[in-house]
């Protein structure tokens, strides 16, 4: 039975989601909500457990689900790289679902939301487990279709426009990717599109049709790059920030965009092969694209004042870190790219969830509205603090590890190929880190050290009185008298941390960031092994 289980993580959520759409609840009552919640969480959790079980027992497993025609099969395979991605989403999804319950509490049409949310899980798992380019392409197209209703979910005019744009960009990009698929199929040495470490292009073809193949690679890179928000094909991502936060967080910071990056990694290292691409003009073209995006995304994030859109721009910039790693075309580059893929997932989902928690609790969406919230929502902003420092690449947090590896890979690539672009890339990464510092720290500084407004000035004065009393007491004990507290309450409506369903995922993500920052050796060893095999 071992083989068939491979298909379960893909098919179970899709079937479950479809079933949920078909299922009819009598009314939108609380009891039904709870039932729905239990059903969804149970389904997702079960699926994650299956994935973990597979990771433990069936590494290297292989399953041909069915044959399309000729050599084209829908095939699932569990190798280390796919396993890493699958493990990542299996870890994130149940927590994100938990978060969504609280976030979506007051929304109607929950059934439809969760149905697609669960289906997306299956499709993303399909991308992770895909054993050949055809299967991945199939899942890739399906991913567009199942996430489209999620972007559309608010049903506002803005959401409709955003979702239409998302559809155009994705389908258009997939068309370019399709060209890549066809060429890989026709020039492969095995006659199919199987993923093999080191690539499957036949040597004669790669010699004879070198430039054509490189051109196709660039096209496919940018085609898959649409999902990875590669400049200038990033336009859909910031606009899709209108979707509910669980969607933007999990889908647009992790699943969808990472699927794009993952597809590029597969294409580069497992279909074309790094050795074929190394040092060619195609490498420099895609690397320049990635670097341009890094700089562009982080600069735009500084300009943006809508919090979630700012994070979306930050995602654009950070995804291109991964693509930069992919474009380095070396084992070390692959390891670095994967490490950023994993670590960025935690950092970005954590930041998005914090933004969502603030929106949910206070309804505030703009950065300038966040004054002084840091102390009112200590857990949320504590987690945001960790995520921000990590995004900036401060040591002790995960982000530093991936940036360090990326820079190492860049330098070794630069000294091996003699190109100047990898060196410039490190500069761009540092520029982007500086910009990250500005756009993330400005949020935190606002939250913790509010600029005094008229109302706040008043509070400051009451604080001063408290201080006087403290001095009078000589003991240094501060007087926290009730009048002051009253004053504070009347001055501003009290906001607090959200409920446990939101906090638990946040705290877990923040913990993982710190854990990865302090003890990254096991992860890096695994990733370097993947890199070593593929390079």
């Amino acid at each position: 039975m071992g083989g068939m289980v491979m298909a379960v993580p893909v098919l179970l959520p899709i079937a479950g989601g479809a079933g949920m759409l078909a299922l009819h609840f009598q009314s939108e009552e609380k009891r039904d909500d709870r039932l729905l919640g239990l059903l969804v969480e149970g389904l997702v959790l079960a699926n994650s457990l299956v994935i973990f079980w597979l990771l433990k027992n069936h590494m290297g497993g292989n399953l041909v689900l069915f044959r399309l025609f000729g050599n084209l099969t829908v095939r699932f395979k569990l190798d280390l790289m796919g396993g890493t991605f699958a493990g990542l989403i299996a870890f994130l999804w149940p927590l994100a679902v938990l978060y969504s319950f609280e976030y979506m509490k007051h929304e109607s049409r929950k059934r439809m939301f969760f149905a697609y949310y669960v289906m997306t899980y299956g499709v993303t798992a399909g991308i992770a487990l895909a054993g050949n380019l055809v299967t991945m392409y199939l899942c890739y197209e399906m991913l567009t279709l199942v996430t489209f209703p999620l972007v559309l979910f608010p049903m506002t005019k803005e959401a409709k426009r955003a979702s239409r744009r998302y559809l155009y960009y994705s389908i258009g990009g997939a068309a370019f990717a399709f060209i890549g698929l066809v060429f890989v199929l026709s020039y492969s040495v095995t006659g199919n599109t199987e993923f093999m470490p080191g690539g499957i292009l036949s040597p004669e073809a790669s010699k004879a049709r070198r430039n054509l193949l490189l051109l196709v690679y660039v096209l496919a890179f940018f085609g898959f790059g649409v999902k990875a928000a590669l400049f200038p094909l990033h336009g859909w991502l910031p606009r899709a920030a209108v979707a509910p936060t669980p969607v933007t967080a999990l889908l647009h910071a992790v699943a969808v965009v990472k699927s794009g990056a993952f597809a590029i990694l597969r294409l580069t290292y497992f279909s074309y092969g790094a050795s074929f691409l190394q040092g060619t003009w195609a490498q420099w073209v895609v690397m320049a694209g990635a670097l341009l995006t890094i700089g562009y995304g982080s600069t735009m994030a500084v300009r943006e004042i809508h919090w979630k859109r700012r994070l979306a721009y930050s995602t654009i910039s950070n995804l291109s870190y991964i693509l930069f790693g992919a474009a380095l075309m070396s084992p070390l580059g692959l390891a670095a790219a994967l490490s950023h893929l994993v670590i960025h997932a935690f950092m970005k989902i954590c930041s998005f969830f914090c933004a969502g928690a603030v929106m949910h609790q206070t309804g505030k969406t703009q950065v300038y509205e966040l004054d002084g919230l840091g102390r009112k929502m200590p857990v949320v902003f504590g987690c945001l603090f960790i995520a921000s420092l990590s995004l900036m690449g401060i040591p002790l947090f995960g982000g530093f590890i991936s940036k360090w590896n990326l820079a190492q890979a860049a330098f070794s690539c630069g000294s091996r190929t003699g190109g100047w672009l990898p060196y410039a890339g490190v500069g761009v990464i540092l520029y982007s880190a500086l910009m990250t510092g500005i756009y993330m720290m400005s949020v935190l500084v606002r939250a913790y050290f509010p600029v005094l407004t008229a109302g706040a000035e008043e509070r400051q004065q009451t604080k001063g009185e408290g201080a006087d009393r403290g001095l009078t007491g000589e003991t240094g004990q501060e007087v926290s008298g009730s009048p002051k507290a009253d004053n504070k309450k009347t001055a501003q409506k009290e906001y607090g941390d959200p409920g446990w369903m939101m906090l638990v995922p946040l705290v877990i993500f923040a913990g993982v960031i710190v854990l990865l920052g302090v003890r990254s050796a096991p992860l890096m060893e695994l990733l370097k092994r993947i890199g070593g095999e593929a390079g």
Partner: protein
Amino acid sequence: MKEAISLNVPGVCGMGLHFELDGFRLIYLAIAVLMWSVSGIFSLEYMAHYKKRSRYYLFFWATFFATAGVFLSADFYTTFIFFEIMSFTSYVWVAFDEKKESLRAAQTYLAVAIIGGMVMLMGMFLLYDLCGTLRFDELEGMAGQILKGRRRLQLYAAGGLLLFGFGAKAGCFPLHIWLPKAHPVAPAPASALLSGILTKTGIFGIIAVSLMMFGTDGEWGMLIAGLGLITMLLGALLALFSVNLKRTLACSSVSQIGFILTGIGMSCLLQAAGEDNGLAVRGTFLHMVNHSLFKLVLFLCAAAVYMNLHELDLNKIRGFGRKKPVLMFCFSMGALGISGMPLWSGYISKTLLHESIVEYTQVLEGMKLAGESMPGIGGNPVFWHGAEWLFLISGGMTAAYMLKLWIALFAEPDPDFQAEIDGENRSAESILQTFSGYEAHKDCVKPDAHTSSMKWDFYPKCMRKTSAAALIMAAVLLPLFGLFPHSFMDGMADMAQGFFGKSGHAHLVSYFSAGNLKGGAISLGIGIVLYGVVVRRWMRKDGQYVDRWPSWLDLENLLYRPVLQVALPGICGAVCGFVDRYLVSSAVTVFLAASAVVCRGMDQMADGVIRAARFSTHSQIPRAAAFGTNTEGRGTGGPGSCVRERRARFFSVLARLREQVQRNGRLVEESFSFGLMLFAIGLCLTLGYLLLVFWLQLG
């Protein structure tokens, strides 16, 4: 300490951490402990009436551990990690009281820290790529090899980037901007640490870079010494102009860092010239230690002033120190020490630094006599004579601004409220009055009537006994070190010089020889003259101290903020925004429009063929009849209804079916022939193409 203890923690934070404990690190660790405990004791009183004490103490101790981590680190990676943590935890000190100017200063501090950190990281990447290691002990050999080799310039680049990062923290020109801003707004015990020991972490890094990587490189030494001289002079100048107690001390820190940097530069230069660099190394180290202690004492004295008056402006704190012996003693010790008065510790380290410049000048002169000379301006002894004078003048300026502070605090009586400040007239009313004179801050002390007498009891003492004890303990060290230089200072220098790559005992310097005393005397003389002429005559107006520094001349406002806040995000942001709004969007629009036009055109093309065929070769059955069959299902009005009528009158069902079949047959026939025709056209085109290709190949 002969043997260094080292500790490796593999696997943590990616590359693992490496610590080492040798003499230098031991001493600095001890100083850190001393400084943190003294200012910690002082903080108990200073922070007593602040509300967010717990936050302060959290970051206070967090910074201690980070700082200790920096000093114990044995590779740049570990240094960097703790360095960054330290930058972020100390940020909270600067932003602590959340006032507008504090937040602005904190912004500056954070910006310098982040940019410095990033640049340093870049340098580390480059260095790691070059040498494959970041450990100090391994770098020493590697760097020497690379300096001889082809990738020399890259090593310089790496060193320069590291220097930028560490220099930003040390307060080296032109990155000193954060010191004069951040120190006055931070709580005073924290300023003592910022100035006394956090800047030294930067110096630690610069020593590591300079002496481990470029120990034998004259050009590098020249760079550091040049930066040191500029920083030294500029800092002293800024301090002389300042009329704010803590700002003066902060600028003084910049200046003293310049002295230390000069010392590091001289160490490199002397080593590069093949001489013994013992004097410079020991001078550098001792000045580091001294400066840490001076600033601890001086900033805590400033803390005592601030916590009573909530003022730092020299005009407003005038005369505060009169009749307060503890404060006067401590401040005097610090001031005499930092001015380089013989018998105090500052004299010792400054003498050593001075001697090292003199020694290098002599070396160069000797070389000139022997007919060789070093290239460049640094090879000219005249330059070093100038440097020596610069050194003496900066020392003189140090004396001048300390004299300015001392006289303002302890000698000049306040024109209006002296009696009250001295605490001679203690009736509650007059104190209230006094205080209202000084009342400028919102969160300063507003006495309630019934507690006021108790509160002012400690006012003449100006601080609690515990604080005073801690402060005196730190202050006593300065003359103690200065009186017995051979037992204390030489001992410390012997322990520490291993870190500077020096072993063995240096020859004993007779600190109180006539030549050395002369240097000190010249410096002090310059100071007194400067004070008498410049400060008394020019910087005072109507009995008030005025700031004569042109306010527009501020490197931060003039250069950094415009570049970072306007130019960089403005230009890059504008470019990106423009690209986003116009280029990408219009590209999409244009692409869509163009493709629509093309597609429509192609659509029309195929349609055109069909339409042409219909009108010419394949003109079909009359319209009305065709309509009859086609529109039946639709059941629309017009001809359809007409047909239905006819059908009802004349045809049976079978007959209708027959006609339908006939018509369909005809339609199929016609469509088939139409399809055949299109196929024929396609075939003709292919044939034409093949002929063309054939023809091309022939030709």
